[in-house]
């Protein structure tokens, strides 16, 4: 298998961070020369990469390398941070997210986000937690439609069976792992094209983590997932392609098997083998 990965790698460009897409996938997102700052501090430095649709892309790197800032640029969340500033382009199906006529709220609907700590609304019921995003985006017209969307989203988030009899209970009554799946259900409910996940399992126990990973593999059939993780084994287990960032730069971006077996760049090698980081 390593052999195949290496042969595959040979066919692809070794020097460019933009890896060529196989025929059956398209690049849903094109990031071009993206830089991001907090005030005077540059967090992302001239980053260029393509994201394949219906796949999982993992971004790994040591703390402070800019990986969370990077994915927050992908749905225009970075610009709402204190001193947040972005340069460069992020093209979603060819349209620049940073163009003047683009509504950031619409972008955040098309590119959803799941955070490190499950962000359930504790005073809301499980049902309302999922429905809240849909209500804001007015994607439903009748109450029946709303119920259907909530059920479908909870099913896709592999939570339906566990909560179907207690939809009116508080979202805060669920376990950490269930809460995170509830957040994924809420993200799915607004029918995004891309789901960004920022360390979605770092606050979860191993069993809940594996459930979320299984869920990621399931939802990638319908959505494009970009995950930032400190957990290299997690990146290796779930992602199709992995990008390694260091000091704001994208050092290497290639099929995951290749990055974890035969990385091209010594800095990637040193990081994933634990020689620094």
């Amino acid at each position, binding site marked *: 298998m*390593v*052999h195949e990965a*290496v042969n595959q790698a040979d066919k692809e460009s070794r020097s460019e961070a933009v890896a060529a897409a196989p025929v059956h996938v398209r690049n849903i997102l094109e990031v071009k020369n993206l830089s991001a700052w907090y005030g005077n501090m540059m967090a992302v430095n001239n980053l260029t990469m393509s994201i394949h649709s219906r796949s999982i892309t993992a971004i790994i790197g040591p703390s402070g390398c800019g990986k969370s800032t990077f994915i927050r640029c992908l749905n225009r969340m970075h610009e709402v941070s204190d001193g947040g500033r972005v340069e460069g382009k992020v093209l979603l199906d060819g349209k620049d997210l940073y163009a003047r006529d683009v509504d950031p709220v619409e972008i955040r609907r098309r590119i959803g986000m799941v955070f490190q700590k499950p962000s359930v609304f504790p005073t809301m019921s499980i049902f309302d937690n999922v429905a809240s995003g849909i209500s804001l985006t007015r994607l439903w017209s009748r109450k029946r439609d709303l119920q259907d969307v909530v059920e479908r989203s909870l099913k896709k988030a592999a939570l339906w069976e566990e909560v179907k009899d207690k939809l009116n209970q508080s979202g805060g009554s669920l376990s950490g792992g269930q809460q995170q799946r509830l957040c994924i259900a809420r993200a799915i409910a607004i029918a995004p094209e891309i789901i960004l996940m920022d360390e979605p399992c770092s606050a979860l126990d191993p069993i809940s983590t594996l459930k979320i990973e299984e869920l990621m593999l399931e939802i990638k059939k319908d959505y494009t997932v970009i995950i930032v993780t400190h957990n290299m084994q997690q990146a*290796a287990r779930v992602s199709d392609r992995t990008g390694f960032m260091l000091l704001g730069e994208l050092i290497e971006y290639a099929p995951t098997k290749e990055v*974890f077996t035969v990385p091209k760049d010594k800095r990637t090698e040193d990081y994933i*083998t*634990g*020689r*620094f*980081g």
Partner: protein
Amino acid sequence: MPRETYQRHLREIQDEVMEMGGTVEKALEWSMQALKNRDLELAKKVVDNDKEIDKKRFAIEEQALDLMSTQAPMASDLRILLATLSVITDLERMADHAAGNAKVAILIGDEPPLKPLIDLPRMNEIVIDMLHKSLDAFIHHDAEAARQIVSRDDEIDHLYDQVFRELLIFMMEDPRTITRAERLIWVGHNLERTGDRVTNICERVVFMVTGKMEEMNISTY
């Protein structure tokens, strides 16, 4: 450097492979000495030591498994461990071939010699030299050195051809020599197989360094 203990264990495993390799070199050397000098004690020693080499192989395998299960090695570290598992299997088989030759020495016992042994010791010398260099390439992670070693396998194949033809003539000319000649053919065959195992080690060194699997020299036999 973070993960110092892990890195130390990884180095120790490679050192253990070198130690095992040294024992196998000794087994090859002693088995030929036993054949040449009709030294039955030495031959028995090679056969006995083979059990120790088997144990060593399992011990290294266990250490590699421990590191894999507890440290989640990646990239070059993972390749080192995969190569290690393969190299120790080849070393263990080489030791079996050396023990096989020692058993031939025991079988021959004090039978009159069929012919002076010239080509077989020469084959053995080349095999030991190749093995030594392949282990050097392993410990120094030197893919280029590994690539150069395999070409010598042709010399071994050539010598085996020569031994085989010569012994065939003996057997055709005088059928009473068949049993003795056949035993020497076994020795030649064991050495030829040992040479192939060195090629396997070299292939693993190249994989360990580059991540590429290359079939480097397809034996005639």
